C-alpha cells in the first residue's frame, strides 16, 4: 500500500520520514531474508546447538517441508489436504525399505530383520525388490507420492468434488493407508513400522558427524523447496491458483480448467511431503503407521494454520514452532499438550485464519477501527 500515490491533501501534513522505502531496498527484502534464514539454519544452528538438539531440529524441519506443500495446496489453493500423512509415509517407507535392504546386505542377509521374525517365507516380496536399487528408491520417494496424488486428484477434481468432500476423501485415504500398513505386518512391519535403521547410503547413522550431515541435507532441501515454492507463488500459476481458491467458477469462465490448476498444487504438495518423509527416516530412524495416520495427517496442517497458511514463511515457522512445542510438552505433560493442540486449532483457525503472520495486520486494523479520532472523522 505504501507505493500507491497518496491523495494530495493528505500528504501535505505528513513529514518526509514516512516516504515509502526505496524500491532498491524492497527488491532485496526477500532474497535478504532467504539468505539470513540460510545463514541461521546452515551456519549458526550447527555451531551453537548440541548434537541432540540438532537432530531434533532436523525432525522439525522435515515437518516444515510438509508445511511448504500445505501452504501451497491449502493456503494458496484452498484445498484442505487432510491426508498428507499418506504421501509423507510413501516417501518415508520407500526410503526406509531401501535402507533396511542395504542394512541387511551389509550383514550378508537377503531379508530385513523384521521379515525374518514375522515373514512366512524366505523370499523377498516382489514389490520390495526394486527398492534395493538406490536410484529407484530415491526417485520413488518423490514420484510415488506424486503418482498417488495425481491419480486421486485427477478423478476427484475432474468431477468437481470439492470443499469438505475433498477433505474427507483425502482423510479417508490416510485412514485406509495406515490400516493397510498395519494389516500387512509380514511385509511392512505392521504397527511397529520400519525401525532400527543403521546406515544411510554407507554412512553409519549412530555417528554424530553423520547425524549432522543429515541435518544439513534436510535444511538445504527445505531452503531449496522454499525458494521453489516462492517462485511458484509469484508466478502466473500462483496467481491462477489463488484465483481458483477465491472464485473457481470465475476462473472457469475465463477459459482455464480449475481441475488442472488444483491438480498441480496437490501433486506438488504430495511430492514435498514424500521428500519430507524420506528425509525423516534417516533423521529420526523410524517410520511407522502411527506417524502418518488420520491424527498426524491433520497435525501436518495445524503448523501451517498457526503460522499463517497463505504465507510461506509463516507456515514453515508455524510448523517448526508447533513441532517444538509438541516435543517439549508431550513428554512431560501429555495431557497439557493435547489440550493446547486442540486450543491451537480453535484459536488459530477459528479466530486468526491468517495465522500469526497476519497478527500485525489484524491488530493494526483493530486499533484503527477503535480509534475515536478516526471514528469521528468517518
Amino acid at each position: 500500500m505504501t507505493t500507491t500515490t497518496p491523495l494530495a491533501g493528505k500528504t501535505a501534513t505528513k513529514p518526509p520520514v514516512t516516504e515509502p522505502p526505496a524500491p532498491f531496498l524492497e527488491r532485496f527484502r526477500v532474497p535478504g531474508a532467504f539468505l539470513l534464514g540460510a545463514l541461521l539454519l546452515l551456519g549458526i544452528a550447527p555451531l551453537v546447538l548440541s548434537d541432540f538438539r540438532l537432530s531434533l531440529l532436523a525432525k522439525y524441519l522435515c515437518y516444515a517441508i510438509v508445511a511448504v506443500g500445505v501452504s501451497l495446496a491449502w493456503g494458496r489453493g484452498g484445498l484442505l489436504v487432510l491426508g498428507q500423512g499418506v504421501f509423507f509415509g510413501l516417501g518415508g517407507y520407500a526410503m526406509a525399505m531401501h535402507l533396511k535392504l542395504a542394512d541387511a546386505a551389509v550383514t550378508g542377509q537377503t531379508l530385513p530383520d523384521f521379515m525374518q521374525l514375522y515373514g512366512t517365507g524366505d523370499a523377498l516380496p516382489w514389490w520390495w525388490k526394486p527398492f534395493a536399487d538406490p536410484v529407484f528408491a530415491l526417485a520413488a520417494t518423490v514420484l510415488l507420492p506424486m503418482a498417488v496424488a495425481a491419480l486421486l486428484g485427477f478423478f476427484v477434481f475432474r468431477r468437481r468434488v470439492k470443499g469438505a468432500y475433498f477433505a474427507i476423501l483425502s482423510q479417508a485415504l490416510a485412514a485406509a493407508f495406515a490400516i493397510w500398513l498395519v494389516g500387512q505386518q509380514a511385509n511392512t512391519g505392521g504397527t511397529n513400522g520400519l525401525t532400527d535403521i543403521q546406515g544411510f547410503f554407507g554412512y553409519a547413522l549412530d555417528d554424530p558427524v553423520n547425524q549432522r550431515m543429515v541435518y544439513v541435507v534436510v535444511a538445504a532441501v527445505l531452503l531449496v523447496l522454499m525458494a521453489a515454492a516462492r517462485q511458484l507463488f509469484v508466478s502466473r500459476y500462483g496467481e491462477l491458483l489463488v484465483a481458483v481458491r477465491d472464485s473457481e467458477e470465475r476462473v472457469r469462465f475465463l477459459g482455464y480448467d480449475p481441475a488442472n490448476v488444483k491438480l498441480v498444487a496437490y501433486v506438488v504438495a504430495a511430492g514435498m511431503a514424500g521428500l519430507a518423509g524420506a528425509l525423516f527416516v534417516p533423521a529420526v530412524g523410524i517410520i511407522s503407521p502411527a506417524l502418518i495416520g488420520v491424527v498426524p495427517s491433520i497435525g501436518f496442517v495445524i503448523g501451517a494454520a498457526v503460522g499463517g497458511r497463505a504465507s510461506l514463511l509463516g507456515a514453515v515457522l508455524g510448523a517448526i514452532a508447533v513441532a517444538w512445542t509438541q516435543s517439549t510438552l508431550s513428554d512431560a505433560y501429555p495431557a497439557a499438550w493435547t489440550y493446547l493442540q486442540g486450543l491451537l486449532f480453535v484459536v488459530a483457525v477459528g479466530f486468526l485464519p491468517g495465522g500469526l503472520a497476519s497478527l500485525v495486520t489484524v491488530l493494526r486494523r483493530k486499533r484503527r477501527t477503535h480509534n475515536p479520532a478516526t471514528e469521528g472523522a468517518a
Partner: protein
Amino acid sequence: MTVVLNQSFTGISIGAVLLLIALGLTLTFGQMGVINMAHGEFIMAGAYTTYVLQQSVSGAGVSLLVALPLAFLVAGAMGALLEWLLIRRLYTRPLDTLLVTWGVSLMLQQLARDVFGAPNVQTTAPDLLTGHITVGGVTLAGNRLFILGLALLCVLALTLILRLTPLGRRIRAVVQNRDLAEVSGIATGRVDRTTFFIGSGLAGVAGVALTLVGPIGPTMGTNYIVDAFLVVVVGGIAQLKGSVITAFALGVLQSVLEYSTTVSVAKVVVLVAIVVFLQWRPQGLYTLRTRSLA
C-alpha cells in the same frame, strides 16, 4: 448360502451402526455445510453416559432404556453449545469449521481421558440382548438386532419430524435455500441450533448402541467417524434415504470384502469404490437440484 446370509447380516449390522452415526452428520452437514469432527466425541459422550448410569442403576436393561433419552440430551446439549460458541461464527468458512471442531474433539478426548481414565471401560449388556436367535441357519445376535431396530427407529422418527412437523419444514427450508428461508421469516439461527441439538443427540444415541458391541474409550469416536463421513459424502445431503442406502451398502460391501480378503484390504477397496462412485455422482446419491454453480 448360509455363509452369504451370515455375512450379509454382519454387513447390515455394520451398516446400522454407520447409519446411526451418519444420520446426525447428514443433518448437521446438510444444514450448514459444516463437517463436525467433534461428532465422534458426542458418540463417546453417549457411551460414557451409559457407563455412568450403569454405575448407579442396577438393572442393565433399565439403565440401557434410561440411557437412550439421557444420552440424546447430553450429546445434544454439547452439540448445541458447540454450535452456539463456535460454529455459528464460522459458517461462511466451512473448511475452517472442520479444523476448529477437530480441535474441540481433541480436547474432549483428553477430557474423557482425565475424567474416566485412558483404559477402555465396559458395560454389561442386558440378558435379553446377549443371546442370539437362529433363523434358517442364520445366526442373528441379539445386540446386533437391537442396534438395527434402533437405527431404523431413529430413521423413522427423523423422517416423521422432517416431513410432518413445523420444525421439520423449517429445517428443510434452511437446507434447501438458506437466504430465501431467512427472508421468509424463519429464524435460521434458531433452526441451526435445534438441528445441531438433534444431530448431536443422535450421535449420543449411537454411542449407547456402541456400548453393546465394543469397549468404551476416549478414542472410540475417531474409529467410526471417517467411515461415517464417507457415508454422508456418498449418500448426499438432500435426503435421509441417501444415507440409509449408503450405510447399508457400505456395511455389506465391507463385510463381504473382509470375508473374502482381509480387513485392511477391504478398507482400501471400499475407498477406491467410493472414488469410482463419485465419478458417476460427484455430489452423492441424492442431491438438491439447483441452478447454482456451486
